[in-house]
C-alpha cells in the first residue's frame, strides 16, 4: 500500500481537514452535538489512518508511544485540575463559576477545559489501544 | 499497695514474667530462676490477700468497659481466693518439679514450656478473681489456648492428635454452649456480674433456666463432666509437670471452679432448688463419678488411670454444686483444694517414675517401691488423701459433701460417695501394693538398688505429700473462709 500513490496523496490531503473537523466538533460541543469524546476519536482516527497508510514505525516516530501513554493520565489530570481550580477560587469542587470574570464565562471556560481533557484522554486511549494490538505479533 | 492493686498484680505478674523468661532463652539457669522467683512472688501476693478475705474483705479492681455494658474487672470472693491460692502455691512446687523433670528428660523447647506455663497460671488466677462472666470467659479461653502448646509439646503424631482433641473439645464446648449461655444470661439478666444469690432469679421460665444450666454444665468442658471428658485422657500425652499442674490442678479446677461459681453466683442456690432444675445434674454427676472410676480400674497406663480418677473426682465437685445446699457447696469448694494436693502428688510420682525408670504402665511397676521408696511413700499418701482417709485433707471435703447431701435429703448421693471411695481404693492401692510387695521382674528383693528421680522432683513431691497432711489440719480455717460465700457482705 505504501507504493500506492493515489492513496498516499489523498490521505495526506485529508489529514489536515480531519484534524480541523475534530477541532470543530470539539469547540462546537457547547452548542450542538459534539465534544471531547467525538473529537478525541476523530483525532485518533487521523493518527490511525496515517498508520494504516504509512506504516506503524513512521507513525510511532511521529506520535511516540510514550506521548500516547502520557496523554491518557494527562487528560484526566486536566479534568481534575479544573475541578481543583474550583477549590482555589473558593467554590466547591468542579464549580467553574469563578474561573473567569463572571459566572457564565467561568462555566464556559471550565467546560471547555474539561472537554479538552476529555479529548486528550480519549485520543490517547484510542491510539494506545491501536498501538498495543497493532504491535502484537511483530516482535 | 492496696488490695485491689495486689489483685491486679497477682493476675498479671506471671504473664509479665514471660518477657524475661523468653529473653533468657539461651541461659537455662537464669530462665528457671526467673520462673521460680515469679512463682514464689505470685504465691506470696495471693496469700497476702487471704487474711483480709477471711475477715470479710472483698477487694475489687476498677472495671474496664469493653463494649455495651461488657466489662473487664476483678473482684475477690472466698471461692476465688481458695482457687487462686491453690493454683499459685502449687505452681511454686510445680516449677521446682519441672526443673528436675524437664532437665532429667532432656525435653526440647523448654523456654516455650515455661512461657506457656506462666500464661496458663496467669489465666487461672484471672479466672479465680474475675468479677463477671465475661472476664471469666476471657481467661477461660486464654487458659485453653495457652495450654494447647503444652499438650502438643512433643510434636509427634500422638501429641498432635491429642492436642487436636484437646483444643477442639475445650474450645468447642466453650464456644458452642458456654458462650451462648453467657450471652443469654446477659440478655435475660442484663448483667454479667457475679452477685450473691444469683442474677437469674425470676428472669426466665424454669424450662429456660434448666436449659441454661445444661448449657453451662456441658459448656464448661474443663469440668470434664461425662460424656465430655475424653479430652482429659487425650491431654496426658503432655509432659508430666503439665499433666500434674494443669490437668490435675489449674485447668480442670478452673472448670469445676467455674461450675461452682456459676451455680452459686449466677443461678443462686435458692433459684435452682426452688424450681428443681438441679435434679438431673445430680444424676449426671453421679453417673460420671462412678463410670469414670470403673474405667480407671481398667486402665493399665498410669497417667491414664490417674486421668480417669481425676474425671471422677471432678464429678464430686459438680455433684456437690448440683446438690446445692450451702454445706455441699462448701464441701465442693474444699474438694478443689484437697483433690489438687492429692492428685498433684500422684502425678509427680508418675513423672518421677518415668524420669528415673521410663516406666509408664501399671503392670511394669512391680518392685518400684523398693527402687524409689520416697516416691512410692508419697504416692501412698496421695492415694489415701484421694480415697478420703484421715489424717489427710481429702477426708474433710467428702465429709462435708455427704453432710450437704443429707441436708438436701439426697441419701443416695451418700451411697454414691461411699461406693466411689471403694472404687478409688480399687484403682489406687494396688499400684502401691505392687510397688512394695512384688519383686521387680528378673530380680529378687535383696538385690534391688535404690534409684530415685532427680532431687528437684523428690523435693516437690515430698512438699505436696506433706501438704496433704497439713490440709487436714487447715480444713477448719478453709471452711471458715468458704462459708463467707453465703455470709452477708461485711461492712468494712
Amino acid at each position, binding site marked *: 500500500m505504501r507504493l500506492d500513490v493515489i492513496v498516499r496523496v489523498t490521505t495526506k490531503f485529508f489529514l489536515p481537514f480531519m484534524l480541523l473537523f475534530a477541532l470543530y466538533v470539539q469547540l462546537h460541543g457547547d452548542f450542538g452535538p459534539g465534544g471531547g469524546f467525538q473529537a478525541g476519536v476523530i483525532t485518533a482516527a487521523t493518527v490511525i489512518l496515517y498508520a494504516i497508510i504509512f506504516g506503524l514505525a513512521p507513525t510511532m516516530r511521529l506520535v511516540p508511544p510514550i506521548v500516547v501513554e*502520557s496523554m*491518557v*493520565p*494527562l487528560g*484526566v*489530570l486536566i479534568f*481534575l485540575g479544573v*475541578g*481543583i481550580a*474550583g*477549590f482555589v477560587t473558593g*467554590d*466547591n*469542587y*468542579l*464549580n*467553574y*463559576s469563578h474561573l473567569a470574570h463572571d459566572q457564565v464565562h467561568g462555566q464556559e471556560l471550565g467546560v471547555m477545559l474539561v472537554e479538552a481533557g476529555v479529548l486528550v484522554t480519549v485520543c490517547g486511549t484510542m491510539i494506545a489501544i491501536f498501538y498495543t494490538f497493532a504491535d502484537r505479533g511483530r516482535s | 499497695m492496696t488490695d485491689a492493686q495486689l489483685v491486679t498484680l497477682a493476675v498479671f505478674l506471671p504473664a509479665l514474667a514471660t518477657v524475661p523468661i523468653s529473653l533468657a532463652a539461651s541461659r537455662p539457669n537464669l530462665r528457671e530462676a526467673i520462673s521460680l522467683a515469679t512463682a514464689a512472688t505470685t504465691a506470696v501476693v495471693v496469700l497476702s490477700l487471704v487474711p483480709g478475705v477471711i475477715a470479710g474483705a472483698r477487694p475489687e479492681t476498677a472495671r*474496664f*468497659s*469493653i*463494649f*455495651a455494658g*461488657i466489662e*473487664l474487672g476483678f473482684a475477690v470472693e472466698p471461692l476465688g481466693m481458695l482457687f487462686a491460692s491453690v493454683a499459685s502455691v502449687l505452681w511454686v512446687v510445680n516449677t521446682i518439679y519441672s526443673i528436675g523433670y524437664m532437665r532429667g528428660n532432656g525435653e526440647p523447647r523448654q523456654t516455650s514450656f515455661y512461657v506457656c506455663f506462666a500464661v496458663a497460671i496467669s489465666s487461672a488466677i484471672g479466672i479465680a478473681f474475675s468479677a463477671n462472666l*465475661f472476664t471469666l*470467659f*476471657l481467661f477461660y*479461653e*486464654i487458659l485453653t*489456648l495457652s495450654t494447647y*502448646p503444652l499438650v*502438643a509439646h512433643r*510434636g509427634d503424631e500422638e*501429641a*498432635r492428635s491429642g*492436642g*487436636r482433641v484437646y*483444643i*477442639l473439645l475445650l*474450645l*468447642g464446648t466453650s*464456644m*458452642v454452649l458456654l*458462650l*451462648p449461655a453467657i*450471652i*443469654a444470661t*446477659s*440478655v435475660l439478666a442484663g448483667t454479667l456480674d457475679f452477685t450473691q444469690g444469683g442474677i437469674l432469679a425470676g428472669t426466665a421460665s424454669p424450662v429456660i433456666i434448666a436449659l441454661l444450666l445444661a448449657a453451662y454444665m456441658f459448656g464448661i468442658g474443663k469440668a470434664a463432666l461425662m460424656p465430655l471428658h475424653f479430652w482429659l485422657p487425650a491431654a496426658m500425652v503432655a509432659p508430666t509437670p503439665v499433666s500434674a499442674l494443669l490437668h490435675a490442678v489449674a485447668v480442670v479446677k478452673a472448670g469445676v471452679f467455674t461450675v461452682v461459681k456459676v451455680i452459686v453466683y449466677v443461678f443462686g442456690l435458692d433459684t435452682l432448688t426452688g424450681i428443681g432444675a438441679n435434679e438431673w445434674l445430680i444424676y449426671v454427676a453421679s453417673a460420671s463419678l462412678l463410670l469414670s472410676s470403673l474405667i480407671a480400674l481398667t486402665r493399665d497406663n498410669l497417667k491414664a488411670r490417674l486421668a480417669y480418677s481425676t474425671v471422677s473426682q471432678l464429678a464430686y465437685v459438680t455433684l456437690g454444686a448440683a446438690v446445692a445446699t450451702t454445706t455441699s457447696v462448701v464441701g465442693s469448694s474444699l474438694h478443689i483444694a484437697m483433690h489438687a494436693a492429692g492428685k498433684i502428688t500422684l502425678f509427680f510420682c508418675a513423672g518421677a517414675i518415668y524420669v528415673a525408670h521410663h516406666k509408664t504402665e501399671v503392670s511394669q511397676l512391680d518392685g518400684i517401691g523398693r527402687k524409689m521408696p520416697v516416691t512410692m511413700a508419697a504416692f501412698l499418701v496421695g492415694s489415701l488423701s484421694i480415697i478420703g482417709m484421715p489424717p489427710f485433707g481429702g477426708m474433710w471435703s467428702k465429709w462435708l459433701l455427704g453432710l450437704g447431701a443429707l441436708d438436701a435429703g439426697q441419701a443416695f448421693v451418700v451411697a454414691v460417695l461411699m461406693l466411689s471411695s471403694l472404687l478409688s481404693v480399687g484403682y489406687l492401692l494396688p499400684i502401691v501394693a505392687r510397688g512394695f510387695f512384688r519383686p521387680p521382674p528378673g530380680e529378687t528383693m535383696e538385690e534391688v538398688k535404690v534409684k530415685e528421680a532427680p532431687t528437684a522432683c523428690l523435693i516437690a513431691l515430698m512438699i505436696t505429700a506433706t501438704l496433704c497432711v497439713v490440709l487436714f489440719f487447715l480444713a477448719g480455717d478453709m471452711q471458715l473462709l468458704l462459708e463467707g460465700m453465703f455470709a452477708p457482705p461485711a461492712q468494712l
Partner: protein
Amino acid sequence: MIEHHLPALLVVVPLVAAVVTALIRHGIAAYVTTLVASWTLPVMALMLLGQVLDGGEVSYALGDWAPPVGIEYRVDGANAPLLVLVAAMAALVATYAPRSVASEIDIGRRGWFYTMFLLCVAGLLGIAITADAFNAFVFLEISSLATYVLIALGRDRRALLAAYQYLILGTIGATLYVVGVGLIFVMTGSLNMGDVAARLAGIENTRPIFAALAFITVGISLKLALFPLHVWLPNAYAFAPSMATAFLASTATKVAVYLLLRFLFSLFGTDFVFVQHPITPILLALSLAAMFAASFVAVFQEDIKRMLAYSSVAQIGYITLGVALATQTGLTGAMVHVLNHALIKGALFLAVGCIVYRTGVFRIDQLAGIGRTMPVTMAAFVIAGLGLIGVPGTVGFVSKWYLVAAALEQGWWWLALAIVASSLIAVVYVGRIVEIAWFREPSSRVRAGKRLPIEMIAVTWVMAGATIYFGLDAEFTAGLAGRAADTLLAGLAGPG
C-alpha cells in the same frame, strides 16, 4: 476552608495521585507518591468522622449544583466508619508494600500497579461517600476495573484467568445494579439517594420498584460475594499479589456490603424490604450456607491464600446474617464485623505476604515448621486467626457477641447455636495451620529465605495488634457500628 472540602478531597487526592503515578511511571517515585497520598487519606477520613460525630451529617455538593440535581457527597454515621476503614487500610497497605511488590511484580509494571491501587482506593472511597446512585455505579466500575488489573498482575499465570472470571461476574453484578438504578430512575426521576427515598414512599408496591429491589440486591450480592455468588472470590484472592489481596480482602467486599445496606435500609426502607417481602429468610439461609459450606471448603484447601479466601466468604455470611435480622443489634453486629473482619483478614493476608516474601511458599503442607523459623510473623497470624475464631479478647468475639445477642433477642436459639457452631470450623482450619507451623520439623524450604523487611512485619503487627486492641476496647468500634445501625434504621432524609 479545607474542612469544608474534605468529602471531595477524599476522592480527588487518590485520583490525582493515580494520574500522577501513571505519568511518572517510575517505580520508586510512583511509590513515594502513593505513600504520601495514602497517608493523607486516613487523616482526612478521621477529620470527617470527627465532623460527623460532632454535628451529624456532612453534605457536599459537587460543582455547587444543589442536590438532587447535582451529585451530592454525603457523610453520615453509616459511611463515616467505612471511609476511615478504607483510608486506613490504604495507608497501612501502602506502607507495607514497597519490597513485597518489588519481589512479586516486574520492575516495568510497578508504577502501573500503584496507579491501579490508587484508582481502586479512589473508587472504593467514592462508592462509600457518594449519595448518588449512578455515581456509585461509576465508582464501582472504577474500583472494579482497577481490581481486575491488580489481580491480573499476580505472578502465576492463573491470575489472568482469575481476573477474567472476576471481570465477567463483576461486570454482570455492576450491570444488574445499574439496571435496578435505571428502574428506580424511571419511576422516580431522581438518582439522589435521599431524594429517591422520599419519592419512593408512595409508589413502593409497584412492579418496577420490586424488580429494582431484586436487581440491585443480586447485583451488589455478586460484588460482595454472597454465597453462592462468591465463585470469583477464591481465585481472585489466591492469585493476586499479596499486598493487593490484603487490601481487597479487607475493603472491597465491605464497601459492597455498605452499598447494599444503603439501598435496603435507607432507600427501600426496612419496612418494605424486611416486613413486606421475605428477604430475611432468603438472606438468612444464604448466610448460613456461606458460614458452613465455605468454612467447610476452607478446611480442605491446599493453598493458604485460597483457604483464607474461602474463610472470607464464610465471614461475609456473618455480616449478611446480621443484616438479615434487620434489628438494631443485628445491624450493629453486621457493621462491627465489617470493621473487625477487615482488621482480621488484613492481618492474616499481610502475614501470608510476609511468608511468601521470605519463602515463596503458598502450599499449606510446605509450611511445616514455619512457626519456628518465622515466629514473629506466625504469632501475628495466630492472633488474627484467633480473631477469626472469635476468641474473647479479640475483635471476632465482639462481632459474635452482637450477632448471637441479636439472634437471642428474636428468640431464635437455633440461629445462635448455628453462629457459634460455625465458628468451630474456623478452629479446625486455623488449628491446622498452627499445628503444621509449630509441631512439624521445619523443611529446608522454610529455613532458607530473605530477611524480612521491618515495614512488612511492623504493619502486620499493627493489624494484629488492632485485632486485640479493638477486642478489649471495643467501645469505639461498637459505638461507631451502633451509630451506623441507628443511621441506617432511621432512614434517609431528603437532600440537605
